[in-house]
């Protein structure tokens, strides 16, 4: 007889029947009934109505029945908290049962019932169970502390459970130790700055001893915990490594990977001259290779991690290329990862074999895989110079196959090869031109046009070829249009006599018939250049191009170091650091700039007083909540606007002491009468004195840079805090960040250099002369195409137009004009950023209706269509553009330069969803 019969009762009045059965005198019938209830619960039926009847079955000497009732309680207690109290007595009694299995069961279940009233009763039994004589009960109680902490952290602290839990690390039983470590690590994760785990040489020694004795899972908990420890010197690091290395021989892949994490991290501290360092390196390769024989999912995790490991220490696997060769039956996600690692390991020594493999893959059937294989060939050519010729000929062979997507992919990579090795492989151009007609993907078309334009003097019919693309100019994607424009200008500069008409045609298509600002801008630049100074034009457009770099997809070193500490975890699979606080997500990466005006404004102008969430230590690349964006300064509801400056967010922790060897940095940004500053608070939480502070910023979107050195006058003694206001300028070098307002900071002291990133509120960049001239506002406003507009509503905004206006003005958002249309107040606002970019907005306020609508068109700077307006911003940008014109016009740099310059033209509102 099987249990499946319990799933089959679906009659009407079922609940009623079950009720009767549950209250039956016969034990067997009772048990049957509970099983039916659990079966129904399992398939998602609501059987909560039976709560009192099921709880009545709890007092039983039948273990199976007891477990089922407990299961029911876990599921429904939350929906019936008052009734759940009925169960408390039995729980408390069970915690005293002579059978340890029952005691453990009771404490385990109680921890899963997330009802406040129950947790109060849980404390006493839990305290006893943590000191139980039976290790099975103790190990269960240890986990229960973590459960309770998740429900009510304060209670756990008040009751002193954390100390008891810490004591369990010294327990005589290895399983208890392992669970205590797991529970403490889990709790510590939600208190990053607490010194909960308190790792010191003594406790580390205890953990290493327990490591030899506990189950495979316990070993993983301990290894993961060890990875958080920072040894005091290289000798300690080495001795830990020596005791962890045997774990590399464990049959469980997860144990191996956690051991690899500890070793990779501690290796940092070992001197490379040490014999032991070399031994350790050698010991790491075989277990990593063996991971590739594991189940595909584990292989995938292993490969994502190996990808990090080969970037960090390429020497470990440099001789193991062959194991990454793709097998026919590998799942596609394994194939793609293997391919990536193959390219990373490619070197002069193994390139022949790699190329033969890549060529093989390029003739497979899976389109994504084939494309990636073709790209890989191009990357090999750029990475291993000696192989370039071979790669080119392999690509030509592939072009001969005439498989459409292979041809297109090949042309894209050949363009990159031309960029890397100019004037070397142009003999293949003829073959490429034969395939012109089959190209239907924008990237391939753009690449081909670039090639034709770049080598126009060697292609007899270059004008015909380019002209053929011109016919459908408006149907092409922007990428192709831009390339075609540049290509034809190049052609004209090389063969001016025959192509005058062509260039006229493309310039007018780009400037007069196009809605695309990028295209128009570029068209105007060329037009002006060509008409004013053809010689200069030649110098600019046909200038020598910077060579492209070989590996563009390497993970940035500080991030890589961080990810190495997360080997084996989800972060290492995503190649993204986790966030403390909100969990990591992949979908919200683009939040940054977009949200500045969107959701933020909405919630802020809203009724409640907004408190900026700490942006602390939240790695920006994951899309941290930008609480302190534009939003804060639109905080219209709080009574008085600050007179002297704009909104200042409370200081948040940017660098927790745990991550910076005891140095804690918190801070915020302010703008006061035209000057921006970073207000810092440095706290020494280490045991030694800190001196020699210095600060540096990475390049960022608005060129923020310290305007003065970081002045800490006296050495910072332990437990001392100092407040510093660091003036900032906006004349530093510019690089587009993701999100736009991300700032990467390095702080140095006598101990080490520490890195963190933070998001600065954009309004610190709003300048005081951001009030646009009325005429100019009008002209610009009219000029904005509809599609560049975004609008959104701000709910529950009880202010009138005056109040809104003055509120905004305190943050340098100025009212240019005001009018009243059909009883609604319309406010026309402008603001200017430090880099001269204007943002315009219209606010519509209906008296009596507590909401206002903002219509924010794209910031429009058309330097060449509005040349008569003397505007500092324009000049600034024009200078910058001129300076990098040559680079800017090339396909490779258009992508990167666009990021730096052009995109900052079109900040935020452009991309707001309408």
């Amino acid at each position: 007889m099987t249990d499946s019969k319990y799933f089959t009762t679906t009659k009407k009045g079922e609940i009623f029947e079950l009720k009767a059965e549950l209250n039956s005198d016969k034990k067997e019938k009772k048990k049957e009934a509970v099983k039916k209830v659990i079966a129904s619960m399992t398939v998602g039926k609501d059987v909560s109505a039976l709560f009192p009847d099921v709880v009545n079955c709890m007092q039983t000497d039948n273990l199976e029945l007891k477990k089922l009732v407990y299961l029911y309680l876990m599921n429904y207690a939350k929906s019936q908290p008052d009734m759940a109290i009925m169960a408390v007595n039995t729980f408390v009694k069970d915690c005293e049962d002579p059978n340890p299995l029952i005691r453990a069961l009771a404490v385990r279940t109680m921890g899963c019932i997330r009802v406040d009233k129950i947790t109060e009763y849980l404390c006493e039994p839990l305290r006893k169970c943590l000191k139980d004589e039976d290790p099975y009960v103790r190990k269960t109680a240890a986990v229960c502390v973590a459960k309770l902490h998740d429900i009510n952290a304060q209670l756990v602290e008040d009751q002193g459970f954390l100390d008891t839990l810490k004591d369990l690390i010294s327990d005589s039983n290895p399983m208890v130790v392992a669970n205590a470590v797991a529970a403490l690590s889990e709790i510590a994760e939600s208190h990053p700055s607490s010194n909960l785990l308190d790792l010191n040489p003594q406790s580390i020694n205890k953990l290493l001893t327990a490591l030899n004795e506990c189950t495979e899972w316990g070993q993983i908990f301990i290894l993961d915990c060890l990875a958080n420890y920072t040894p005091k010197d290289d000798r300690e690091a080495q001795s830990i490594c020596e005791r962890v290395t045997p774990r590399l021989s464990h049959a469980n892949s997860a144990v191996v990977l956690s051991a690899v994490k500890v070793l990779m991290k501690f290796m940092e501290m070992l001197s490379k001259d040490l014999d032991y360092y070399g031994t350790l390196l050698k010991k790491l390769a075989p277990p990593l290779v063996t991971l590739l024989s594991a189940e595909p999912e584990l292989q995938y995790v292993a490969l994502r991690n190996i990808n990090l490991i080969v970037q960090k220490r390429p020497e470990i696997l440099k001789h193991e290329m062959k194991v990454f060769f793709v097998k026919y039956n590998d799942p596609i996600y394994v194939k793609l990862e293997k391919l990536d690692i193959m390219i990373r390991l490619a070197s002069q020594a193994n390139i022949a074999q790699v190329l033969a493999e890549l060529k093989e893959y390029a003739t497979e059937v899976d389109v994504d895989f084939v494309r990636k294989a073709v790209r890989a060939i191009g990357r090999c050519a750029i990475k291993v110079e000696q192989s370039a010729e071979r790669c080119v000929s392999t690509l030509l062979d592939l072009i001969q196959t005439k498989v459409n997507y292979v041809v297109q992919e090949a042309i894209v990579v050949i363009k990159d090869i031309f960029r890397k090795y100019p004037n070397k492989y142009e003999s293949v151009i003829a073959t490429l031109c034969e395939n012109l007609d089959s190209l239907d993907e924008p990237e391939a078309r753009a690449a081909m046009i670039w090639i034709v334009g770049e080598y126009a003097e060697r292609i007899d019919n270059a004008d015909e070829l380019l002209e053929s693309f011109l016919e459908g100019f408006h149907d092409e994607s922007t990428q192709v249009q831009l390339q075609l424009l540049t290509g034809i200008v190049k052609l004209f500069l090389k063969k001016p006599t025959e192509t005058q008409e062509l260039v006229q045609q493309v310039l007018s298509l780009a400037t007069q018939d196009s809605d695309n600002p990028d295209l128009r801008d570029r068209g105007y630049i060329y037009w002006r250049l060509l008409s004013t100074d053809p010689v200069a034009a030649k110098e600019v457009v046909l200038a020598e191009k910077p060579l492209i770099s070989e590996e563009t997809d390497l993970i940035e070193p500080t991030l890589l170091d961080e990810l190495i500490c997360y080997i084996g975890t989800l972060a290492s699979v995503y190649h993204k650091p986790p966030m403390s606080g909100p969990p990591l997500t992949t979908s919200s990466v683009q939040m940054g700039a977009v949200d500045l005006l969107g959701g933020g404004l909405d919630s802020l102008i809203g009724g409640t007083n907004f408190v900026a969430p700490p942006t602390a230590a939240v790695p920006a690349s994951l899309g941290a909540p930008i609480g302190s964006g534009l939003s804060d300064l639109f905080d219209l509801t709080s009574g008085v606007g600050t007179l002297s400056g704009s909104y200042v967010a409370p200081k948040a922790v940017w660098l927790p002491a745990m991550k910076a060897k005891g140095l804690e940095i918190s801070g915020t940004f302010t703008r006061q009468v035209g000057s921006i500053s970073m207000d810092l608070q440095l706290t020494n939480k280490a045991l030694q004195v800190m001196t020699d502070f210095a600060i540096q910023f990475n390049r960022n979107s608005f060129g923020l840079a310290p305007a003065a050195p970081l002045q800490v006058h006296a050495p910072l003694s332990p437990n001392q805090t100092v407040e510093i206001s660091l003036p900032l300028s906006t004349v530093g070098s510019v690089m587009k960040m993701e999100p736009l307002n991300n700032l990467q900071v390095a702080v140095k002291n006598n101990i080490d250099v520490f890195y963190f990133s933070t998001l600065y509120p954009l309004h610190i960049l709003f300048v005081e002369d951001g009030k646009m001239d009325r005429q100019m506002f009008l002209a610009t406003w009219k000029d904005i195409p509809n599609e560049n507009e975004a609008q959104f509503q701000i709910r529950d905004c009880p202010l009138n137009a005056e109040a809104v206006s003055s509120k905004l003005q305190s943050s340098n958002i100025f009212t240019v004009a005001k009018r009243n249309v059909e009883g609604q107040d319309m406010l026309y606002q402008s603001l200017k950023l430090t880099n001269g970019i204007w943002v315009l907005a219209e606010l519509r306020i209906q008296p009596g209706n507590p909401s206002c609508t903002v219509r924010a068109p794209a910031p429009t700077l058309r330097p060449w269509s509005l040349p008569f307006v003397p505007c500092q911003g324009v000049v600034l940008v024009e200078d910058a553009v001129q300076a990098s014109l040559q680079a800017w016009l090339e396909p490779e740099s258009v992508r990167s330069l666009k990021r730096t310059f052009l995109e900052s033209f079109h900040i935020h509102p452009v991309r707001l969803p309408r």
Partner: protein
Amino acid sequence: MSKIEHFMPLLVQREEEGALAPLLSHGEVHFLWIKHSNLYLVATTSKNANASLVYSFLYKTIEVFCEYFKELEEESIRDNFVIVYELLDELMDFGFPQTTDSKILQEYITQQSNKLETGKSRVPPTVTNAVSWRSEGIKYKKNEVFIDVIESVNLLVNANGSVLLSEIVGTIKLKVFLSGMPELRLGLNDRVLFELTGRGKNKSVELEDVKFHQCVRLSRFDNDRTISFIPPDGDFELMSYRLSTQVKPLIWIESVIEKFSHSRVEIMVKAKGQFKKQSVANSVEIAVPVPSDADSPRFKTSVGSAKYVPERNVVIWSIKSFPGGKEYLMRAHFGLPSVEKEEVEGRPPIGVKFEIPYFTVSGIQVRYMKIIEKSGYQALPWVRYITQSGDYQLRTS
């Protein structure tokens, strides 16, 4: 709507996009999943969980369920849902894996509903012991250990016949029928050990990577290469090892596959046994790919029989016994439809399966197995060797 309800739609969507990976995320929840027959086993987390731990745990869960229910499928979950709940409770607590050793679990979670009488149904002390895999008080009349040394050969050869990858993955499996708490020591002709003890390199094998069952004392092995352990009762895999020494492929295949569009495919396959003459490969199966639209097969073989398996798009050439040094031939002929089908087909490799008993490619040997138990009984170890095909692929052009 509970989080898990997002899983299936998400999976289907990713599958359609051709971007299926073992890790999916929806909002702040991450799904780590594996598939077993018709079941998905899914773990959810919103933290930065240890992914490798999660996947190993999921596979371990399958192993435990299979031990309990013979097969794991929807039916067996339904039939045993009460015990599934009980097991999940013991296997994992608050996301932390606990006891996953099915032999030990079976001591206190049984198929029969257990009546709670005093003294019975207690936690076996084994659960929390340092030796968490063997219970005390095991008794056998005859004390014996059976050792199986199984070597699988993985091979990857490219279309022009050069060997890309050749590795041996060996496993040593034990069947233990021993009383009490015996201490075992296994001696292999391990090169590192021989060098340590000054025996020279003769007849020793260099193991590139070794993995052990958790019963083996890893620090001891790391120290002096001694494999010492207290074994679990019954069947288990003691260790596995890997070596990539270049050996001659045991069965070498040369093939010519000629495709004449719209008319026929002609296949010629030559197989050669490249191992010593005294040995024999058994149950040899050579799977040769054919186009999916092939029809009317005709075969000619010098030995064994060939069969067309249309659902796998292969011809399988089976040879019951294949002595070393011999060479055999198979020809196959297929018709092709005159209308060519649209989609392109991949070029699957030729796969080979075989078993060669009484033989290890690597030359590994069990030199001794010492068994010491405090009661002082005599126990007999028995050893068997076998070499078989692992992932054995030869690409076709």
